[in-house]
């Protein structure tokens, strides 16, 4: 690691009602990979957005390469050598890979764009980074993982001295993560300063030199990676130690009835010949890497996406599920990954959202029985501990954790027997997370059956009675919690079945 290249001092930023950054410090050396960690809402993305000119700081000083800087746009920051690879893909689907990489800075031949040169330069870039992608392929024809690699290549292709990676591994396969780390090591050798934002402890341990932790918009501290433990970092992130022990033994009896049986489900590339059973009162964990096909399986079962073949049995009887309507009628509820987009109707109130799945039960004649609705909603707000001043608050005003609870509320009001939770605690702070775990356990104890899709190993090990592992569209393993270990799960999650 070389000398300091970037220093952010006492950065302060507020939005109406939220003090997002409270006198935060951060420094970066040449040739170092510096992790930035913290729960959601800690301010990591905000800090980076201030650095790269997307937001303007209220006060504080940013020193880059010895001079004080204050960028007003990403273009400015980019021109100075500071580049950010965003979490969400920012690719133009209908253009080719090469056109995307050089968008905004095309090679010109007079008024004409020199597409040939762009393809050549892209090829050179990919060779240097050891990425195997065809530059003349259309962006939207590539897998998400490949698109992410293009995004990374695009950022690196700018002459930069500092790169920020915001959750880069989210959409990558294990091999692609290895490629990414190789690229990062290469960049480190070239004396670049790299900021790495990630939730994944294992990656932090492998690739980073230092770790800075933020909490609630404040700077908590910086540790040297090889000198600290996971618990040290977690302690800084939450303020207290949280013991997350895996579940030792399942309380679900072996002869519990099978409430859901899926047989030979096929739905495109991502769901191939999937079969499994769900018992009453059980929490079935679905583990696997991004792109394993778990969400696609859930959506196929729920009727949200069409399937090619396969049988579904509920309580022993075969059912025909062609749409979410059918699934809901049979008592299945699905909590999707992206709750804002698929889970809640953001502009509407908690009451309107919570009765959405079973409005027929709240009618008096042709009009909606609003007092009955309100009562049912208030009951479930209480049960779930949803923090809101009133039940007719628009959902958009609630925090992430509480919004997630509203989605759960919807399925509770409907009284589903089978619940599919897809990444139920993603993007939610630790406090709300634990409440949701408590809730899932109590639902299971009441006799409901839960499928829990999760990418967090600790969550899987802590909550599941049994674990199904998927890899590239197939079920690769099914283990009981008492036999499960992280290594076993990871092994099956990455095994390739031919």
């Amino acid at each position, binding site marked *: 690691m070389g000398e300091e290249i970037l220093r952010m001092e006492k950065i302060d930023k507020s939005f109406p009602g939220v003090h997002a950054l409270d006198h935060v410090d951060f420094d970066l050396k040449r040739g170092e990979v510096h992790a930035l960690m913290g729960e959601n809402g800690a301010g990591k993305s905000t800090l980076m957005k201030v650095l790269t000119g997307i937001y303007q700081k209220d006060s504080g000083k940013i020193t880059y390469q010895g001079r004080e800087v204050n960028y007003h746009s990403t273009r400015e920051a980019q021109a100075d050598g500071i580049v950010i690879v965003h979490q969400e893909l*920012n690719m133009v689907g*209908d253009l*080719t890979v090469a056109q995307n990489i050089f968008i905004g800075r095309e090679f010109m031949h007079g008024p*004409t764009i020199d597409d040939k040169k762009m393809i050549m330069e892209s090829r050179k870039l990919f060779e240097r980074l050891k990425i195997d992608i*065809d530059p003349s392929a259309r962006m939207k024809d590539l897998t998400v993982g490949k698109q992410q690699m293009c995004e990374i290549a695009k950022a690196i292709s700018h002459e930069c001295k500092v790169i920020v990676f915001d959750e880069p591994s989210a959409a990558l396969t294990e091999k692609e993560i290895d490629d990414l780390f190789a690229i990062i090591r290469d960049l480190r050798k070239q004396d670049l300063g790299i900021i790495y934002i990630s939730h994944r402890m294992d990656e932090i341990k492998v690739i980073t030199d230092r770790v800075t932790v933020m909490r609630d918009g404040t700077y908590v501290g910086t540790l040297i990676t090889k000198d600290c433990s996971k618990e040290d970092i977690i302690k800084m992130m939450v303020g207290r130690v949280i013991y997350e022990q895996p579940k030792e033994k399942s309380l679900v009896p072996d002869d519990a009835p099978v409430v859901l049986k899926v047989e030979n489900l096929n739905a495109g590339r991502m769901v191939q010949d999937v079969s499994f059973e769900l018992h009453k009162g059980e929490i079935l964990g679905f583990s696997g890497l991004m792109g394993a096909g778990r969400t696609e399986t859930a959506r196929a079962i729920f009727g949200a996406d069409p399937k090619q073949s396969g049988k579904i049995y509920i309580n022993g009887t075969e059912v025909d599920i062609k749409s979410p309507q059918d699934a809901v009628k049979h008592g299945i509820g699905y909590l999707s990954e992206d709750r804002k987009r698929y889970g809640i109707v953001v502009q509407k109130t908690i009451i309107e959202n919570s009765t959405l799945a079973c409005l027929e039960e709240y009618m008096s004649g042709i009009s909606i029985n609003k007092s009955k609705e309100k009562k049912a909603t208030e009951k479930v707000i209480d049960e779930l501990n949803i923090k809101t001043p009133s039940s007719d608050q628009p959902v958009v005003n609630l925090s992430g954790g509480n919004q997630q609870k509203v989605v759960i509320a919807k399925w509770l009001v409907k009284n589903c027997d089978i619940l599919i939770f897809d990444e139920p605690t993603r993007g939610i702070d630790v406090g709300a997370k634990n409440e949701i775990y408590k809730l899932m356990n109590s639902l299971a104890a009441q006799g409901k059956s839960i499928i829990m899709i999760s990418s967090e190993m600790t969550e899987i090990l802590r909550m599941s009675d049994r674990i199904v592992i998927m890899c590239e569209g197939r079920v690769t393993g099914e283990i009981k919690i008492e036999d499960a270990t992280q290594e076993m799960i990871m092994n099956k999650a990455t095994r390739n079945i031919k």
Partner: protein
Amino acid sequence: MKKSKVDLKKLGTQKYIVLIVLIALYIFFCIASKTFRKPTTLISLLDMSFYYVIMAIGVAFPIMTGGVDLSIGTGVICYALFGGTLVRNMGAPVWVGILVAIIFGVGIGLLNGILVAVMNLPPFLATLCTSMITRGLGSMCKATPWPTGQQDGAWFHNIFKITLADNTKIPVGFLIVVAAALIMGYVLNHTRVGRYTLAIGSNKEATMLSGVNVKFYHIMAYVICGLFAGMASIAYASAIPTVQPGTGAGMELDAIGGAIVGGVSTAGGIGTIGGTVFGAYVICLLKVGLPFIGLQAYWQQIITGIILIGAVMIDIVKKRRAQF
């Protein structure tokens, strides 16, 4: 490597399908009606199609940004009326009238661009409003014939059609259409204006984050449309002896329909100029050909509407299938 070959095929396919449909339709009409086969029919087809094809080329750009321009129908009439009034009633030379018409078109195009790109109004609504405004403005003029025959200034007709001494007409305008198509095809595929038009339609946010001045290029798409509407108004004035105020609503359907039939996607980000031109000719061919098999003008309105929906539905089915 294989993947890119397949892609090229996919991109070009709709363009060639439309061309085949065009030729097949023409043959159909020739078989169905003896009078259709006369060469004068082809000439009159080309004559009345100049303004539609020019409008279609222009409107392809807003559609490729994921928007639309509904003001081109009433706009063409309005610009032709204003230009014509200047020439007929105020004695201005014809080239001034032409210039005014085109500048007016560009101006309204600029207005549309600002409403959509800067003020973020939904494109169909913004341009629906400007179509009302241009209709109102046009209605302030009286019906104006542009100079014809031996009159002073009638030379402008020669841009589109040269009439020889023995009264045979040569549709020179077709060459202009071809030239415009080639130029705009080049603009679309090889210049930043065209590239960013497609990028905006495909993913405006990503394009903006890449440092492109999205507002400028978004407005530019509508300015191009306005420019072509202005040029189309001259072609219209040449084809229709007297321009009537209050007409024009409905012409945009034919132009937009032509572009969509030719492969421009309403979602934005996809389209070719060649396909647009072929699609526009399909629509015009129907307009001219249907009366020959006994279906009067209003049938053409209905059929164009149905074809438009059909073309979009095909586009949607293709997209659905591609998802799997």
